[in-house]
């Protein structure tokens, strides 16, 4: 039944569009048809245009960049520099070396709240409705945001590393392994962004999001080996800290950078294979967060 309607309407539709285009101003730009570019290129273009929007935000209101960068920097200076003589790590690694991976993960953790708030505000202010009423893939809206926020994370990570170098952090394993460590951190940051999007699409109250974001930062970083070795924690908490993806990421980075004192990751499978644990837990979080975000997004729009 609908197909007959289509057949009846399409010609008139085409005529109407053609006459509009040929109407008064011949110079009027006309959208390229979707087919003139590949679907994938079109999708990338949409995503980049949407990411560009967030980069303009960053220029006009750099609060997010400051927030995401300041939290780890303050911890780096407070713990890594001021308290470094009171902090003991086993195995004779300087505390400045030990602390950097622990601080770097906080770039990812402290980005969760701001990303979530951005998503929630776009939903609340009708911008998402506007984007969704366009013939673009809904996922481009979310992926565009993660790309821009990943850029923020990368800038913040650079700042943390430079300050780290200034207070005495040094990687000891060469350029390639150093770069690999940063790649792992970027993967961690990206995964955390999706956790933020999940939070923003499922929780409407901005104050609640802010609180949850702060909680994520504190719980995940203190229940890990960010500041002290796993063996410095109460015994019953050690397995939690060992299997915490944050610990796995930190240990992976420390080993890649030659900053890992023996025993800082405890013992057992998680301590012996931090890369595997990091890969598995981050993939699991990413899959769950993406699936949950898409569902939450659809539900938030469907209200």
């Amino acid at each position, binding site marked *: 039944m609908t197909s007959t309607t289509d057949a*009846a309407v399409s010609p*008139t539709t085409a005529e109407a569009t053609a006459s509009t285009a040929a109407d008064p101003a011949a110079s009027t730009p*006309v959208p390229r*048809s979707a087919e003139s570019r590949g679907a994938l290129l079109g999708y990338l*273009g949409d995503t980049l245009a949407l990411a560009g*929007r967030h980069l303009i935000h960053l220029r006009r209101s750099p609060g997010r960049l400051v927030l995401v960068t300041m939290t780890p920097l303050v911890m780096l200076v407070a713990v890594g520099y001021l308290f470094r003589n009171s902090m003991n790590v086993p195995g004779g690694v300087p505390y400045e070396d030990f602390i950097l991976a622990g601080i770097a993960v906080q770039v990812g953790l402290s980005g969760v709240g701001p990303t979530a708030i951005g998503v929630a505000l776009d939903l609340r202010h009708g911008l998402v409705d506007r984007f969704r*009423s366009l*013939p673009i893939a809904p996922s481009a809206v979310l992926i565009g945001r993660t790309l821009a926020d990943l850029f923020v994370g990368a800038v913040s990570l650079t700042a943390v590393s430079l300050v780290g170098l200034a207070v005495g952090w040094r990687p000891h394993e060469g350029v390639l392994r150093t770069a690999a460590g940063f790649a792992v951190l970027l993967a961690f940051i990206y995964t955390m962004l999706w956790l933020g999007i999940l939070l923003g699409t499922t929780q409407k109250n901005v104050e609640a999001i802010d609180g949850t974001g702060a909680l994520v930062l504190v719980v995940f970083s203190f229940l890990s080996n960010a500041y002290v070795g796993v063996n410095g924690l109460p015994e019953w908490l050690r397995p939690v800290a060992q299997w915490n993806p944050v610990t796995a990421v930190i240990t992976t980075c420390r080993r890649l950078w030659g900053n890992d004192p023996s025993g800082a990751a405890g013992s057992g499978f998680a301590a012996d294979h931090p890369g595997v644990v990091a890969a598995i837990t981050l993939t699991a979080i990413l899959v769950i967060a993406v699936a949950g975000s898409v569902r939450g997004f659809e539900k938030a729009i*469907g209200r």
Partner: protein
Amino acid sequence: MTVASSDPAILAEGLQKQYRGHTALHRVDLAVPAGTVLGVLGPNGAGKTTTVRILATLVEPSAGRAVVAGHDVVREGKEVRRRIGLAGQYAAVDELLTGRENMVLLAKLLRYGRRGAALRAAELLERFELTDAADRTVGTYSGGMRRRLDLATCVIGDPQVLFLDEPSTGLDPTSRSVLWDVVRDLVANGVTILLTTQYLEEADALADRIAVIDAGRVIAEDTPAALKRMVGSERLEVTLARPESLADAVAALATLGSAQEPVADPATLRVSVQLDRGGLDEVARAAVALREKGVDTVDFEVCKPTLDDVFFQLTGTGQKKESRR
């Protein structure tokens, strides 16, 4: 430009929407011919926004079907989205971006390409009289400017069908009249518009037909004139100088032979009578009859029924009209 299509640009059949715990739409049927304006009128929570969101493919109906610009909103959402514009209750523009950046972003998403997007943005900013403010951030715009920008972003893709959800909410009278001009201009160019409003005046001014929605149902759909006729024709209202002439006035106005007896309100000293035929003759006969009875009047008024009357009568909250008689 005439659209030579007899198919409605918007067709809704038996739309229903259930949310957990309550039914937002019971049954909504609409048919809007191409190139016309349908005003959807109703109180808060009547289902106006839900209807718009279903037609704009943002929400799936629980039952029923809808065809917009020739495509099914559920099965061919993307095709529908290529042909519509939506202005929601909020001006959905990004406050941190300039007017131009907002336009360019949406033009890019509508696949105008980098240069095409810049051209299209400039063209529409000019048309909506925003060129001077184009490079200021939207945060500095007035409510009226924001709304104009919002409308401009809606028409970037030359939509055939435009949905405007309470477009003049929160606008001052000047901005509202600019908005009305824009809407009329779009209609003159062949765009089909569905606009929801709580302002009966707005529906009266812009709409070719009006659908009244209450509690998730369309309770009336007709032209503004026909809806007003449903409520009755013009009335003559006379305010008396002295209470003792009330009976004389009623007797005088009864000689007009209206279908309904004149109604007197002792509290306000007002007598009103329906003018079945309307026009100056009947008013003149009433004036002569009152003069012959020696009734002194301080005020008189010929009242046309307003959409308020229609609305109150249809939704059963008819107190306002009754008390005026």
